C-alpha cells in the first residue's frame, strides 16, 4: 500500500525522473528483444535453408546380395521417411563416341547410373536438364563435352568383365550435386573426400537392369530417401535427431545397408553457423545492451542526490532501512515494467520496419521467449540501478560522505591496482595466443554431435573492451588532474578570463567528466566496431558472390560450341548493361589431370569484373595480367600445379586441349606466366587461365562459353533481360549476383543480415546521440544548483556557456577519439576472431565513412541540443533554488 502511494507521489512530483529512467531501460530492452528474436529466427532459417538445399536426404548403400525390396520396406518404415527409390550404380571402363569417319573420342573410366521412372521429379536437385530429353539415356555435360556427343549421338559403354554396349543419347544434363551423389558411403570419418567421376551416363532403370545385372562386377544399388522435414528449429538439435534416425535405420537393416546422411552433413555445417550467429549476438549485440545499461545507470544516478534527501526525510519520520529498500524496489519495478513495455513495443515496431514482421520472422515461441528475457533484463536493470544504490546508501552513507560532491579522495581501487592495464594485457595475450595458433573459434568436427567453442578466445574482446573503458577513465581523469594548464589554454578561446576557473572546475569534477567521457567512448567504439564489422562482412559477402558468379550477371553454357555467335554484342546493347567480357571455358589435361581452362582478354576483363590482387600469386593483378597479355601463349596456373610440376616462370607447359576440327585432344604448348589463386567462376582448386586468342587459334574455335556482365541497373532485372534474349533452347544458365549470394553462400551469410545491420547501425546512432546529449544534459542538470548560484552572482549567458561548452567539447573530443581508437581495435579483433563467418577472409577492414560521418554529425547535433537545452534551464536562476540557499 505504502509502495503504491509512493509511486503515485513520484508520478505526480517526479515524472521526469521516472520517464527518463524508463526510456533508458526501454532502449536496453528494445535491443535485447530485437537482437535475440532476430538471431533465434536466423537459427531457424538456417535449419530451413540447410534442409531445403539437400537434393537427397539419405543415400542407403545396400550390401551386395541384399534383397532390394525387403530393404526398401525396412527403409520406408523408418521414422519420417516419405519416399524411397532404388538407384543402380555401375562402374564403366570408359565411354566412346564417334566413327572412324568423324573421329572416335574416348574417355577414361566413369560411372553409369540406373534411375527409376520419376526420379528427376522426386529429387529435382540432382539432375538439371541442359539439352534434349528429360528421361531416357542422358549424358553428363562434361562427358558430352569430352566425347563431343550430343542428342542423337551413339555412345559405347565399356563394362568390366563384359562386352561393350551402345546406347543412343536422348539428352545432356548437369549433375549439380555430383559430390554427394557419388560420395563414398561408409568411408571412415576424417578420410579424404572422393572426387566425383569425370564421366557419367544415366540410363532408365529397366535398361540399366538389362545391361548391368545385379551380380555383375562393379554393380551396386543405393536407396535414395526423402524425409519429412519436420525438424527442430535449432540446427544442432536437428543434426542430432537426424543422425540418430540414420543410426537407427542402419541397426534395423542389420548390416544390409549403410546410410549416407546428406541431410545431417548439411545440418552439420549449419550448426556451426548457428554458433557463429550466437557469437555475433554476443559480440555485436551485448556491448550495445551494456552501453544502454550504463546509460540507464547514469540517468538513475542523476536522481540519486534527490533520492538521498528523500531517504533522509523518510528516516526522520521513522522509516526503517527495509522500508526504504521496499520503496526503492516499488519505484524500480514500476520503471522496469514501463520500460520493458516500451522496449517491447519498440522492438515490435523495429521488427516490422527492419524485418517486415513484428516477430522478426521467427516462431511465436521464439519471439515470446526473447520478449520475456528482455523484459527480465529491463526490470533487472531498473532494480540494479535504483535499488542497488538505495541499499548501499541505506547501509553505508554517512553525512560527510553525502556532502562530498567532489572529493579529493584517493584514486579508486581498480586504478591503484592498474586493472585497466592488466585487462588490456590479458586481452592482448589471449588474442595473440589465438592468432598465433591459427585456431577456429567454433570447432564442429564433422559427424560429431558435440560442438566446441573456444570460450577462452572469446575473452579477448571482452577483456580488451573493459580494459579500454577503464583506460579511458584513467586517461580522462589524468588529463583533467594533471593537464589543467593545457585545459586552461584550450578553454581560453571560449571562456576568456574565466578559463582558469573553468579548467579548475573541470579538473575537480573529473569523476563526473570521466564518467561521461567513458560512456561517450564506449558508445563511439560500439558504433564504430559494429559499423566496420558489418561493412567488412557485407564487402566480403559481395566479394564471395562476385567470385562465384563471375560478375554482376553471368551467362554460361557448357557446350563446346558455346553461346550463339554475336551474343556478346547483343547483350552489350541491352539496357542496364555497362560492359561485357567474353570468356572461353574449356577443359584441358595437365598430365592426367583434367582442369578447367579460361580463355580471356587480359586487357579488358578488369573493366567488367574486379581483378583483385588477392587473385594472383604475386599479389599484383595488373602486373600479372600485363605479363599474360605480353605473352600470347602465356598461361596462369594454380599453385598446386606449379608445385606438382615444379614450374618456373618462362617454362613451357604442354596441355592437351580438344580441337573443334577433329574433336580430339591435342598437345598445345603454353608458357608459364604466373600463378592464379582465384578467378571469377573458377573452382577453388586447380584451373588454368590463358589468352582467348591463342586458345581459339590452337583449338580451331573461338566459341565463348561465359559472358561476364557488369550492370548499371538491378542485376536480377538485367539477368531477366539476358534470359529473354538467349531463350531456354540455348542451354545457357544466367545468374545474377544477388540471387547467387542467397543461393550459394554459407547459410549464415544467406540469412538476410541487412535488417540486422540496419537495426544495429540505427541503434548505435541513437545511442551515440542519446549518450552524448543526455549525458551532457544530465551532467549539467546535476549541477543546476551551481549554475543557479553562478547566475545569481551575475554570470552572463556567455559565461555560463563557457562552462557548458568547454566541458562538452572535452567529453565529446576525448570520448570520440578514444572511442574511435578502441572501436577500430575491437573491430580488428572481432574480424580476426570471427574469421569463420568470412569467405574469403578480408585482407583489410572496410570503413563506412558515410555512416561514421552521420554518427559524428548526430553526436555533434545531440551535444548542441543537450547543451543548449541544459543551458536554457540554468540561464535564469530559479527562485526556488535560490530560496533553498
Amino acid at each position, binding site marked *: 500500500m505504502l509502495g503504491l502511494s509512493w509511486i503515485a507521489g513520484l508520478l505526480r512530483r517526479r515524472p521526469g525522473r521516472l520517464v527518463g529512467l524508463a526510456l533508458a531501460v526501454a532502449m536496453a530492452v528494445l535491443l535485447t528483444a530485437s537482437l535475440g528474436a532476430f538471431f533465434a529466427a536466423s537459427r531457424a532459417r538456417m535449419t530451413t535453408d540447410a534442409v531445403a538445399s539437400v537434393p537427397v536426404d539419405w543415400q542407403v548403400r545396400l550390401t551386395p546380395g541384399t534383397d532390394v525390396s525387403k530393404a526398401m520396406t525396412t527403409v520406408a518404415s523408418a521414422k519420417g521417411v516419405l519416399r524411397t527409390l532404388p538407384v543402380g550404380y555401375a562402374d564403366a571402363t570408359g565411354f566412346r563416341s564417334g566413327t572412324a569417319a568423324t573421329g572416335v573420342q574416348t574417355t577414361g573410366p566413369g560411372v553409369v547410373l540406373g534411375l527409376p521412372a520419376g526420379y528427376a521429379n522426386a529429387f529435382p536437385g540432382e539432375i538439371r536438364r541442359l539439352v534434349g530429353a528429360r528421361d531416357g539415356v542422358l549424358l553428363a555435360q562434361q562427358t558430352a563435352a569430352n566425347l563431343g556427343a550430343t542428342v542423337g549421338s551413339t555412345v559405347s559403354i565399356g563394362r568390366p568383365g563384359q562386352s561393350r554396349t551402345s546406347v543412343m543419347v536422348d539428352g545432356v544434363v548437369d549433375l549439380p550435386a555430383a559430390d554427394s551423389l557419388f560420395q563414398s558411403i561408409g568411408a571412415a570419418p576424417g578420410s579424404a573426400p572422393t572426387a566425383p567421376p569425370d564421366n557419367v551416363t544415366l540410363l532408365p532403370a529397366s535398361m540399366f537392369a538389362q545391361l548391368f545385372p545385379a551380380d555383375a562386377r562393379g554393380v551396386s544399388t543405393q536407396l535414395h530417401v526423402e524425409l519429412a522435414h519436420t525438424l527442430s528449429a535449432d540446427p544442432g538439435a536437428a543434426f542430432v535427431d537426424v543422425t540418430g534416425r540414420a543410426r537407427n535405420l542402419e541397426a534395423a537393416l542389420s548390416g544390409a545397408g549403410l546410410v549416407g546422411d546428406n541431410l545431417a552433413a548439411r545440418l552439420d555445417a549449419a550448426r556451426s553457423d548457428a554458433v557463429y550467429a550466437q557469437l555475433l549476438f554476443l559480440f555485436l549485440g551485448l556491448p550495445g545492451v551494456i552501453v544502454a545499461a550504463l546509460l540507464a545507470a547514469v540517468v538513475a544516478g542523476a536522481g540519486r542526490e534527490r533520492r538521498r534527501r528523500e531517504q533522509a526525510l523518510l528516516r526522520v519520520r521513522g522509516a526503517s532501512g527495509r522500508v526504504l529498500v521496499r520503496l526503492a524496489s516499488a519505484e524500480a519495478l514500476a520503471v522496469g515494467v514501463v520500460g520493458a513495455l516500451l522496449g517491447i513495443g519498440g522492438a515490435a515496431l523495429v521488427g516490422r520496419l527492419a524485418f517486415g514482421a513484428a516477430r522478426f520472422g521467427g516462431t511465436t515461441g521464439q519471439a515470446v521467449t526473447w520478449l520475456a528475457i528482455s523484459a527480465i533484463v529491463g526490470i533487472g536493470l531498473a532494480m540494479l540501478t535504483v535499488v542497488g544504490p538505495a541499499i548501499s546508501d541505506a547501509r553505508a552513507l554517512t553525512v560527510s560522505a553525502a*556532502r*562530498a*560532491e*567532489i*572529493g*579529493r579522495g584517493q584514486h579508486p581501487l581498480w586504478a591503484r591496482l592498474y586493472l585497466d592495464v592488466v585487462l588490456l594485457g590479458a586481452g592482448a595475450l589471449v588474442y595473440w595466443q589465438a592468432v598465433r595458433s591459427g585456431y577456429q573459434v567454433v570447432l564442429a568436427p564433422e559427424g560429431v554431435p558435440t560442438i566446441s567453442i573456444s570460450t577462452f578466445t572469446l575473452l579477448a574482446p571482452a577483456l580488451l573492451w573493459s580494459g579500454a573503458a577503464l583506460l579511458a577513465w584513467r586517461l580522462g581523469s589524468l588529463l583533467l588532474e594533471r593537464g589543467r594548464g593545457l585545459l586552461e589554454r584550450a578553454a581560453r578561446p571560449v571562456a576568456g*578570463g*574565466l578559463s*582558469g*576557473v573553468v579548467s*579548475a*572546475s*573541470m579538473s*575537480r*569534477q573529473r569523476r563526473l567528466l570521466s564518467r561521461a567521457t567513458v560512456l561517450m567512448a564506449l558508445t563511439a567504439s560500439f558504433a564504430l566496431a559494429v559499423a566496420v564489422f558489418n561493412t567488412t562482412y557485407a564487402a566480403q559477402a559481395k566479394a564471395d558472390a562476385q567470385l562465384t558468379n563471375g560478375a554482376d550477371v553471368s551467362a554460361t553454357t557448357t557446350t563446346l560450341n558455346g553461346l550463339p555467335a554475336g551474343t556478346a554484342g547483343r547483350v552489350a546493347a541491352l539496357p542496364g548493361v555497362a560492359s561485357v567480357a567474353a570468356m572461353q571455358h574449356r577443359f584441358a589435361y595437365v598430365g592426367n589431370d583434367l582442369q578447367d581452362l579460361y580463355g580471356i582478354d587480359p586487357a579488358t576483363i578488369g573493366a567488367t569484373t574486379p581483378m583483385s590482387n588477392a587473385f594472383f600469386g604475386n599479389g599484383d593483378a595488373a602486373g600479372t595480367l600485363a605479363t599474360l597479355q605480353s605473352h600470347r601463349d602465356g598461361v596462369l596456373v594454380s599453385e598446386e600445379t606449379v608445385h606438382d610440376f615444379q614450374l618456373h616462370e618462362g617454362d613451357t607447359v604442354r596441355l592437351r586441349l580438344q580441337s573443334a576440327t577433329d574433336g580430339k585432344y591435342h598437345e598445345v604448348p603454353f608458357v608459364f606466366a604466373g600463378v592464379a589463386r582465384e578467378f571469377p567462376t573458377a573452382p577453388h582448386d586447380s584451373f588454368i587461365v590463358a589468352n582467348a586468342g591463342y586458345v581459339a587459334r590452337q583449338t580451331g574455335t573461338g566459341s565463348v562459353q561465359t559472358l561476364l556482365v557488369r550492370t548499371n541497373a538491378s542485376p536480377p532485372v538485367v539477368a531477366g533481360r539476358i534470359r529473354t534474349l538467349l531463350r531456354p533452347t540455348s542451354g545457357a544458365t544466367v545468374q545474377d549476383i544477388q540471387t547467387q549470394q542467397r543461393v550459394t553462400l554459407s547459410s549464415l551469410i544467406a540469412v538476410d543480415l541487412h535488417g540486422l545491420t540496419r537495426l544495429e547501425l540505427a541503434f548505435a546512432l541513437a545511442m551515440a546521440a542519446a549518450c552524448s546529449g543526455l549525458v551532457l544534459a544530465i551532467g549539467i542538470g546535476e549541477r543546476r544548483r*551551481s549554475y543557479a*548560484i*553562478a547566475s*545569481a*552572482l*551575475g*554570470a*552572463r549567458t556567455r*559565461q555560463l556557456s563557457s562552462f557548458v561548452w568547454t566541458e562538452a567539447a572535452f567529453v565529446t573530443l576525448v570520448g570520440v577519439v578514444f572511442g574511435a581508437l578502441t572501436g577500430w581495435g575491437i573491430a580488428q579483433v572481432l574480424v580476426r576472431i570471427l574469421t569463420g563467418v568470412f569467405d574469403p577472409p578480408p585482407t583489410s577492414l572496410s570503413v563506412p565513412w558515410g555512416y561514421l560521418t552521420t554518427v559524428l554529425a548526430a553526436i555533434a547535433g545531440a551535444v548542441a541540443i543537450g547543451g543548449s537545452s541544459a543551458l536554457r534551464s540554468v540561464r535564469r*536562476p530559479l*527562485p526556488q533554488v*535560490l*530560496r*533553498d*540557499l
Partner: protein
Amino acid sequence: MSDVLVRAEDLVRVYGTGPGAVRAVWEATFSIEPGERIALVGPSGSGKSTLLLLIAGLETPTSGTLAWPAFGESGDLRPGPITIAFQGPSLLPPLNVGENVALPLLLEGRTQTEAAAAARAALDLFELGDVAEKLPEEISGGQAQCAGLARAIVGEPRLVLADEPTGQLDHETAGRAIHALLEAADVSGAAVVVATHDPAVAETMDARWRIEAGELRAEVSRCSA
C-alpha cells in the same frame, strides 16, 4: 543618476492562485539609499528571503513598481552593484574557497591576478586566509557562510544583501563576521540589508524593517509600508 539605490511602490509577490495563493510580499513601499544599514526581521516564512530576492532582481514582482535608479535596469545589477550572501551553503563545490570568492570579479572581467588578490584580502577580513585553498566540502558550515559574506563584499558593491548570514555561526563569530561586513561596506560606502533572526545582529543596524505575512513596516528610521 539618482542616489537612491532601490525604490519600490506597492510591491507584491504572490505565489500560486486562488484560495491557496501565498502572499510572500504584499504592497511594500520602500527605498534604499547609499550607506544605509537595514535589518530585515520577522518570523520564518514571513517573506524576508523573497523580499531580498526581489531587491536583488532575482525574483519578478507580481505587481507594483520596483526600480534601481542608481544602477539602471535589472540586468545591470550583477555582477557589480548588488551582491547577495545566501543563508545556506552557496559556494560552488568544484571551486576552492579562494576561487569562489574571486568569481564575481572574474565575471566582471577582472584579471585572475587582480581577482585573486582581492579575494585574499576579503578572506583575511573574515579570518579565512588559511582555508583559501580548501574545497567547500572541506570546511565547516560557519566558515562557508563567512566565505559567502567575503564573496559578497569582494567587488566593493553599492548594495550588499545578506540572508541570515550568521545563522550557522556562534555568537562571538557572528559578531566578528557582521563587524567585518559592515567595515567592508564602510570602505566602499555600500548600503547593507541583512535579513536576520538574531537581535544582536539587528542591533548593529541603523534601521529595522519588520515583515509579517508579507507586509512590511519600519520600526526605526526611514520606511513607509
